[in-house]
């Protein structure tokens, strides 16, 4: 039926699409193949020695930073999302909040770094520290968490709210008992995506927390830490002897990639699981 030109056009579209897919595949493949030989138990649990050695402090540092960021951003993000979906009326305040979220989502990560440097490191005097880095990352992931939490709240049918209100529940009781329980999984998905983003970002922590090399673990939130993405950057660009640094860099890249993609895949699986479960 279809003409030759039509079929070739369809084929071209398919080829272009799969070219992108293949490129992703190739990148992941390259890093897995060259990194897998390096990653073993001692790599994950020992300190770096120059360009060689393990990445234990960087893993711990990233976990601290991400944990700190989420502890701050999650409650704020959830509160924002609940306010915006359940309470906000159309008006100037709501528009301003929305504009702020959109603006925040578009701020380049390095600008977050400058901001963190100016506000947390210098003005509040937290210095380059876990505290400064976590707070900076928290600001950065806030819009991600808000947007996906809102989506999760909007997915809960209005009919459930009506049912609860019609039984004489107050608005907050309605939200707490017949909206949040069904939205929480979706909100968690959003925060996992936020965690993934925070774990992978380099630019903001470059200016607020990251240490080039720091064999001992931090003892307080005012200490500097190493972090996986920054460690990778350092290994890849700051060592003249790349023969030694390259395998370690590949190993670090693989760990980081697995961490972030693992979190994302987890979030996606979780999301589709809960979508299927909620059969309203």
């Amino acid at each position, binding site marked *: 039926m279809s003409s030759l030109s039509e079929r070739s056009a*369809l084929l071209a579209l*398919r080829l272009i699409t799969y070219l992108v897919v293949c490129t992703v595949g190739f990148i992941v493949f390259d890093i897995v193949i060259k990194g897998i030989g390096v990653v073993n138990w001692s790599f994950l649990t020992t300190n770096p020695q120059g360009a060689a050695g393990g990445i234990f402090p960087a893993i711990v540092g990233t976990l601290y930073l991400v944990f700190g960021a989420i502890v701050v951003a999650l409650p704020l993000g959830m509160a*924002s999302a609940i306010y915006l979906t359940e309470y906000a009326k159309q008006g100037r305040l709501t528009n301003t909040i929305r504009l702020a*979220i959109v603006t925040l989502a578009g*701020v380049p990560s390095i600008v977050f770094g400058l901001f963190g440097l*100016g506000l947390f490191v210098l003005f509040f005097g937290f210095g380059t520290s876990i505290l400064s880095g976590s707070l900076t990352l928290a600001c950065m992931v806030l819009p991600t968490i808000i947007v996906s939490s809102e989506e999760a709240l909007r997915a809960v049918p209005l009919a459930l709210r009506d049912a609860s209100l019609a039984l004489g529940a107050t608005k907050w009781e309605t939200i707490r008992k017949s909206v949040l329980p069904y939205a929480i999984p979706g909100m968690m998905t959003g925060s996992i995506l936020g965690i993934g983003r925070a774990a*992978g970002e380099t630019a903001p922590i470059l200016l607020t927390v990251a240490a080039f090399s720091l064999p001992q673990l931090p003892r307080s939130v005012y200490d500097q830490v190493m972090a996986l993405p920054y460690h990778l950057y350092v290994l890849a660009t700051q060592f003249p002897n790349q023969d030694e640094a390259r395998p370690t860099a590949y190993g670090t890249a693989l760990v980081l*990639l697995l961490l*972030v993609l693992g979190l*994302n895949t987890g979030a996606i699986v979780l999301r589709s699981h809960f979508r299927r479960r909620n059969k309203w």
Partner: protein
Amino acid sequence: MSFRHLQDRSVKYFLLAGASVSIVVVVLIFAFLIREALPYMKSPGLGSFFSERWAPTSPLKAGYGLLPLVAGSAMVTILATLIAIPFGVCGAVYIAEIAGKRERELLKPFIEMIAAIPSVVLGFFGLVVLAPIVKSAFGLPTGLTGLTGAVLLAFMAVPTIMSISEDAIRNVPRSYLDASLALGANRVQTIFKIVVPAAMSGIIASIMLGMGRVVGETMAVIMVTGNAAQFRFTPLVQIRTMTATIAAEMGEVTNGSTHYQALFWVGIVLLFVTFCINLVALRVLRTYRRA
């Protein structure tokens, strides 16, 4: 008033306080960028930015010309966008109109996965794999060029363009398609003559949002563009972007120095540019959603 009612009333204000944090952060971002940058206006003054020489650490005479940095950012951004558009839009058309349901459900998350890859990992890949390819393909002394950065950034812009365009394409009313098909047009004609034009504002918005992401990208470019601040308009030489400048130099400056203030100005320019791009993109997006 009973406890239930008191609680009901007060919760709203708690939540509102949480929601206002976004506003506070945005205001603080602007405020602190300006605060740190402000003294620069007295001396050396904003006029010094309009020069072709960025050499803040030069012992003889420091140069704070932003032109090479702006040009570098502009060049990689435009080039990256141009490369990303065909992939992003064609991919969106394919996923929205041609792929089967199952294929779409596999492709979409896969493409979205690109957006999740940390930029430092992509930068690393660009450094060790892409740069040597560029070097030998063009017979260059180094593979760290504007083009290498642009290719890498294009790759980062594709998922943004693809997922928002796909959304726009799927929002085109099915009746348009049916009408065209019923007139005897084939699928490809229908897609390119009816569906894509109808989704155009969404596609344009997606391209702009992709651009916004590219302009602000730091790690990928700092690792593969060579970072020489040259005022030359060719993609096959080393270039230096605004983002890379901040990331590379902020660690070495004395807080409060002229150089430090100049870097904050670079940040302000960057913030302003991304803010404008995103704002326009969202305007476009909103008009198409209303239509």
